């Protein structure tokens, strides 16, 4: 290997290496967060059926989205209100009834989670800012099992600080650190 062009090779190697790292960083930002690990729910609850066909409101199940910081998950008694009588033959409903029989409660996998130094209040966003659920959680009514997806305009760094800050900028919401940091 002629020593003549040794520095040249070195320089090229350096640039290539840095380039790879940058590309990897950007890509990983996109892929990983966009879809995230697909949660395996114990019961395949289909939002499309309940929301689109039956026309249920989000707040019917996630009742305290307008009353507290958490938009809670309904308890099994709400499911049993209908499913004790209606279409008991669907395999998923059978599976659900079996789980309720055995454990009394369905242990859903958590899909959306905020870091523990973040204070996010659902009721402020739904009642005061009047933001549609789809704005952050994506078109849930077309999903069977809710997956991590963003309907928001910019998808970069979904559910990350930048994503929230851009939305706050756009809507003129307060950008004080203390609004979201505990």
């Amino acid at each position, binding site marked *: 290997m002629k020593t003549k062009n040794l520095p040249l090779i070195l320089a090229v190697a350096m640039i290539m290496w840095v380039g790879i*790292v*940058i590309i*990897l*960083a950007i890509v*990983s*930002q996109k892929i*990983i967060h966009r879809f*995230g*690990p697909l*949660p395996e729910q114990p019961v395949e609850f289909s939002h499309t059926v309940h929301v689109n066909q039956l026309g249920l409101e989000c707040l019917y199940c996630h009742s*305290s989205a307008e*009353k*507290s*910081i*958490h938009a*809670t*998950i*309904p*308890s*099994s*008694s*709400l499911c049993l209100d209908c499913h004790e009588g209606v279409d008991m033959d669907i395999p998923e409903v059978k599976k659900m009834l079996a789980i309720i029989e055995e454990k*009394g*409660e*369905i*242990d*859903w*996998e*958590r899909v959306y*989670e905020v*870091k*523990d*130094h973040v*204070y996010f*209040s659902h*009721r*402020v966003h739904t*009642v*005061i800012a009047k933001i549609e659920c789809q704005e952050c959680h994506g078109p849930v009514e077309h999903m069977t099992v809710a997956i991590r997806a963003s309907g928001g305009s910019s998808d970069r760094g979904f559910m990350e600080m930048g994503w929230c800050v851009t939305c706050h900028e756009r809507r003129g919401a307060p950008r*004080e*650190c*203390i*609004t979201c*940091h*505990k």
Partner: protein
Amino acid sequence: MNNLDRRNFLKSLGMLSLAMVPDISRRPIRKLFPLLIPAEEIIPGTPYWYASTCCECPARCGTMLKVREGRVIKIEGNPNHPLSRGGLCPRGQAALQELYNVDRIRFPFKKIDNAPKTKLTWDSAINEIKELIEVGKTLFISGYITSIQKSYIQTWLGGISEAAQLFIYEPALRNSYYEANRIAFGRPDANEYHLENADLIMDFGAEFMETWESPVELSHQYSNARRVRNENIVKLIYVGISESLTGTNADEEYKIHPKTEAVVMLSLANWLLDNSQKSNINDREKSTWRRNLQAFTLQKASEMSGLSIEQLTHLGKQLDQYPNTLILCGDAVAAHEQGTDSIVAANILNYICGSYGNTIALKSGQPLDAVDAPVDFEAVIEEILNDQISNIIFYNTNPFYTYPDKERLRKALKKVPLKIALATTLNDTAAMADYVLPVHHTIETWGVEDLGNEDYSLVQPGMQPVFDSKPVEVVLQSIRKHTRLPNDFEQYIENEWQSIFNEIGGNGSFEKNWKEMLLKGGVWNRTTLQSAQVDASQGAFSFLQNYELPKVSERLTLNAHLSHRYYDGVGANKSWLWELPHQLYHYVWDVPVRVHPNVAREYGLAEGEIVSLSCNNRSIEAPVLITDQIHPKVIAMELGSGHANYGQHAVKETGNPADLLPLNFDRISGDKIFLAENVEIKKTGKRRDLVRLQGSYDQGERKIVQQISLKEVVRLHKQGAVREEPHAPKIYPEHEHEVYDWMMVIDLSLCTGCGACAVACYAENAVPVVGKQGCKHGREMAWLRLEKFEVDGRYRFIPMLCQQCEIAPCETVCPVYATVHSNEGLNIQVYNRCVGTRYCSNNCPYKVRRFNYYPTRWEEPTNLQLNPDIYHRPKGVMEKCTFCVHRLRRAKEEAKMQGRLVKDGEAIPACVQSCPTGAMSFGNLNNPDSRVTKMVNNFRGYHVFEVLNTQPSVLYLKNIKHEDKG
């Protein structure tokens, strides 16, 4: 030594490798369990409040329990409870630490003498006890419990056998006040104090700011008396044998020889009769009074007590000069054989000064036999020693700590075949028992407390029990079913309440009244002070005739007094109370014996040296602390150390001062003696440095604590003077705070330095406890601390917290924007952005920033107390007081939901909420009619280190120095 788990290994990889690829490890999925039964009104994420009563000490202040997700996370004072009025003392704030204590008993177990501890299930334990309890006489020893629980237990014991006996063993509570009133006025009632009406309070050892009677209520009354009313404030004179918080806050402080306070009081009474026109005794009786009192001359009092004649005449003149006087006589001084005589002397002096009906009254309705006299406990022990008691049940009491002669008690217990302990945490007494059954903590139980004057305060559970414990009543019923008692205690309370309700003629239906009681936390209709006429003549004269002077020992006396933080040792398993520095000497995690410099010189003692104190042929070891505030013939030590086994926090290496106390009792009331005479001190040559958090008490001319004379205040008030902002150059543009501009005002003349705010801060913000080693290395984490500085010869207290400066020296130096200024005038600390350069802490002139040098671990039950609105700070992050910004944010959110701004007093930090004297007020400067805006340009206002132009948002009001008129 260091556990390299997966996360740390990844962290080091991330740090060393150049890759900028973010940590793409799988996002941890956590399970979500919806509420089993979605009770309609329980919404996760919102706090709920239950009104209850604090049972940490016999004062019984009303509390509000803050519940989040089904667990109590904070205790706050009940704003409309007559005793607490919203405030609590440090012990009340730390009650949660007993509930969530690592050493709580989690399952019933059996431990016969030195056999190994065997775990039992509830049923097997109850069955075993069921047969054993049948044979022989049962003795139930309990601490001071709510009156309803007491009546329940008494009826239950009646079911076992008529000989079964309930003994209330609470040495800290004294019967001497009832006895003294019976002797003086023939009515065995308690005293009702009204400090707010007093101009002069002469306090003989009654530590009403710490442990005496009801500290929160009395501190509140004292603070009302400290506000300027018709150009005067109350004057507090403290006469005691050793220093205390009340003594330090007093305007004048005198130290007298132990056991001589009665002579001083009677000599003052005698002096008043001759020279004062004001005494309300008509001339006819004056001669008889003079004849009885003429034995007590000032000369005699001065000779015995060590006060000079001038001082005594000065005291007399004070009593004469001020119209509304009040004489208090407390346990720190009157805890000896003739304690009750001193209280009778105080009654006589009060009577002569005409305080009755003005600043003191007799309170009817307080049950006389609330507490059994400790002298009867001797009789009980005799009974046990000659085998008459076959089974003992202990509940909520710890005689093995406060009873002086442990050997005798142990010998007695050996003779008892069945010993049962109903306890929340394992203390010295429960360790002696055969069967130990976990019982609910008071926050998990029901109860109604009779406060006297037909006032009742409710004890209401805030949450489901933390562990597999049962309420006392259910345990007793399961041991032996009593026919007339309902099974669950709540039903029993409702029935009892029904009878009380009929008796006091409550209006409306019982159901509505019960609901209202649950909501308000009790029923109280404080009538105004009945100025019942009292006549002390015949009682007093007989007392004075056969009163013989106490024999006074010239050798050292040990004053083993109740502790402001641990009361009678019950608080010694709470880490917050150990980490709260002592209110006068700021030592932590240890209890020294305080000696006078003469004593130290005589025995050649240096601070931190361990000495062995011996008296009544028992001896303990304790480190030495030298202070000139104590009487030369007295050494003092607070109760709290030397527990045999009382959890991981109890300090074992220092001895228990209660061991040295004598076995005799108050000659009239039979109360416990807290003064041990003829104590010998011996050097042991060992040393254990005291960890003291305050660097120095001399503020030089730094003007941290400032004082203004009363005359000056009156003059300036007349002129309508206003605080003029010192000329600060405005180089850069001002920050504008359009909506909110938070401001805190602390009135130093009302602050007594009790430390309730400091413990409330620990409870609210999950401030980590670093233990003795951590404090030794100077890494205490308290966000708010009480500083004590000398100003004009007297010590004053100043709470020091982050001043939320407008021009904050810490913000400009943080390289990563971890601390910035908010548009509400707060200095924000973003914990997860902090990299840990610690420059902000160096640049803060007030040194109020704290750094997490080590990660904090919240062992299993203590993490239940953490407030979900608070971020659990990892290691390497700076933290500081944020004016409880999470409370402000919650209040703003509530207000925003209702479309309005935050009202005054709705959003306040935990310290302002918990201050018993109302010294701290907090509000929004933009709101014209908030308390703070009115106080902000008060001419007494000043900022600490104003010369640095940091423009803090905390304004201190100068302490008002009392001056005698004319």
